[in-house]
């Protein structure tokens, strides 16, 4: 069993009063690709490093399978890690880099060579085995780092932003490669990134963290569809969800004098001021004369099939930014005003005071 379990795992740096990771409860299933995501400083890397044994666990525990690894040194945890900067050993060749862990584990020379060869084939690194890391491109280095992890056949892969040093195009292609590789190897993986797109595309499940506190763990789609709170709602999705403060009145939300229909059950759960969350694609542009939220267009981003209209809506006197996805090539003009509305099912309702989701 190589599920990974965080049980009230906490990391408090000496001299600090707020924990970097606060009582993290998280279970990662056997063979699962778990992505930890959040803005910088949210504790996602620390959580991963606690699992790897690079950070001390102040309280709580971490288990890999049925083993309590909370206080084990990294080498006894049977994990492999891919670092942001790859952390390749500069004085060793690619082959030596990949074989290092096996050598440390006392694996025989021949088996080492065989396993390195196998992993190299898997990652298309055959031609570079005798090179030093300095002589490799960024993408190749990244693959060597992956190879070094794979060769060990660990129980868990830990990956700390392994793609952030690649250029945008390579990042996208490597993303899918890693996901495919992980699926093929079936090794439980914990993957840290600050990029929510990466998280959404790669993770079986995604854990969103903020200020050391776990906000929500779920599949990417569930996170998108049912963000548990305002933070997740704003963080997941690109462009981000439109968040507009409003008042609830008889099953409707009123925003700047315009009515927006909301889910009844959600509305019933509300006790105070709320924030409405509407994905850009959930807005509909309505014609002149129909009631809708007026949006003054400031920018139109044409993507061909679609277009995003950025604008401001004068709500409560202060303009708030709104993004609306519209079909491509419709030709909304900068400076013009459009009116938008949406369906009640598409409106997420959040409690202003707690930030919590009100929809069921």
């Amino acid at each position, binding site marked *: 069993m190589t599920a990974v379990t965080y049980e009230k795992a906490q990391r408090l740096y000496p001299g600090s009063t707020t924990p970097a990771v606060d009582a993290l409860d998280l279970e990662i299933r056997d063979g699962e690709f778990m992505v930890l995501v959040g803005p910088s400083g949210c504790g996602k890397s620390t959580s991963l490093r606690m699992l790897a044994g690079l950070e001390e666990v102040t309280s709580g525990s971490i288990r890999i399978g049925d083993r309590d690894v909370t206080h084990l040194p990294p080498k006894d945890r049977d994990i492999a890690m891919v670092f942001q900067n790859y952390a390749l050993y500069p004085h060793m060749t690619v082959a030596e880099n990949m074989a290092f862990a096996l050598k440390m584990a006392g694996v025989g020379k021949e088996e080492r060579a065989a396993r390195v060869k196998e992993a190299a084939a898997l990652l298309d690194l055959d031609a570079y085995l005798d090179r030093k890391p300095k002589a490799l491109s960024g993408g190749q280095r990244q693959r060597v780092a992956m190879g070094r992890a794979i060769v060990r056949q660990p129980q868990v892969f830990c990956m700390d932003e392994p793609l952030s040093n690649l250029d945008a195009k390579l990042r996208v292609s490597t993303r899918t490669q890693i996901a495919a590789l992980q699926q093929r190897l*079936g090794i439980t993986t914990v993957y840290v990134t600050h990029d929510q797109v990466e998280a959404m595309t790669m993770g079986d499940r995604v854990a969103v963290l903020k200020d050391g506190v776990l906000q929500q763990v779920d599949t990417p789609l569930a996170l998108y569809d049912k963000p548990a709170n305002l933070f997740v709602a704003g963080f997941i999705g690109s462009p981000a969800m439109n968040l507009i403060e409003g008042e609830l009145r008889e099953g409707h939300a009123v925003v700047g004098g315009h009515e927006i229909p909301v889910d009844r059950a959600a509305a019933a759960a509300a006790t105070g001021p709320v924030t409405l969350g509407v994905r850009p694609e959930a807005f509909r542009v309505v014609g002149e004369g129909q009631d809708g939220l007026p949006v003054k267009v400031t920018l139109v981003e044409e993507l061909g099939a679609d277009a995003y209209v950025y604008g401001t809506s004068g709500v409560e006197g202060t303009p708030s930014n709104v993004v609306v996805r519209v079909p491509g090539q419709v030709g909304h003009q900068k400076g013009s005003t459009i009116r938008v509305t949406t369906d009640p099912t598409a409106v997420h309702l959040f409690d202003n005071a707690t930030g919590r989701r009100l929809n069921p």
Partner: protein
Amino acid sequence: MNTSRLGTRTDAGDPGSARVPGGTPGATTPPSTRTGQRAAGSGRRPRWTEDRVVPYLLVLPAVLIVVLLRIVPLVMGANFSFTGDGDANGAWVGLDNYRTLWDDEVFRTAMKNVGLLLLALPVAVAIPGLLATFLFLKVPGYRLYRSVYFFPVVLSPVIIGAIFNVVLSFDGPANQLLEKVGIEPIDWLGDSTYAMFTVIGVHIWATFGMALVIFMAGFATVDQSLLDAARSDGANLRQTVWHVIIPELSQTIQFVFVTTMIGMLTGMFGLLYIMTGGGPGGATYLPELYIWTQQGQMNRPALASAASMVLFVLMLVVGFAQLRLLKRATKES
């Protein structure tokens, strides 16, 4: 679920394969035995783990040597400085040795000369700094100069002192050169007005290459785009140096200051000993030389120990003061 092509995990019969659904954490399999034991022992973090002990072992030899051969002697010396010399050998004399020092004109001169060294410090830093700037600007022949300038650094101070003794003798080559350009010869080492400056000068000659190289390394780290920006802003050379290079080099300058100071306060003994022996008339004494003569020639080891303690305290004070000053100065800029 896909099985890996890799290694032993693919063996269907391997109980260690964690991917067998519902696989019992079998106490019968080797890895689990291991994990079981580990798990039991790891509830609390053990006190003496490898990674906690080894750091101490790594620093142990260095710390041991420094303590045994520097700190212990220092404490012994401190103790010794309160005992007497000659007939009073070994007897406790309190602060007598320190009083003797206070009254000794030679020791006072030595302390005054330390002050002189501190005054010369900015010069000793500025010269290599300036030269490094020129080298950085690639004046013709800069490669050659860079090699040549460092060269005295590798020579023993004792040898340098002996050579300069001859070069700076009254009828020596230095004065012959002065004579040719119509300047009155100078008794470089025999006139108490000049002697200390001469020795300081030779010390700078002998060591500026070191600071120069450090400066050059600092220059190499200066962001070229900052220089370009300064140029496009129309800054002249002086402004560029003042507003771009110096702030960029603050760490290097700090380092050079500290190392040059340590060099001046601890490394001039060889030169002094050979070039002037403290003369003329005691004008070029430094505490180190004073300690040496009291210990040897004058056979007063306890007094020498007292002087050692004064020098040590002085080094501490100057060292700390300088670090603080530099920290403040670099923060302001």
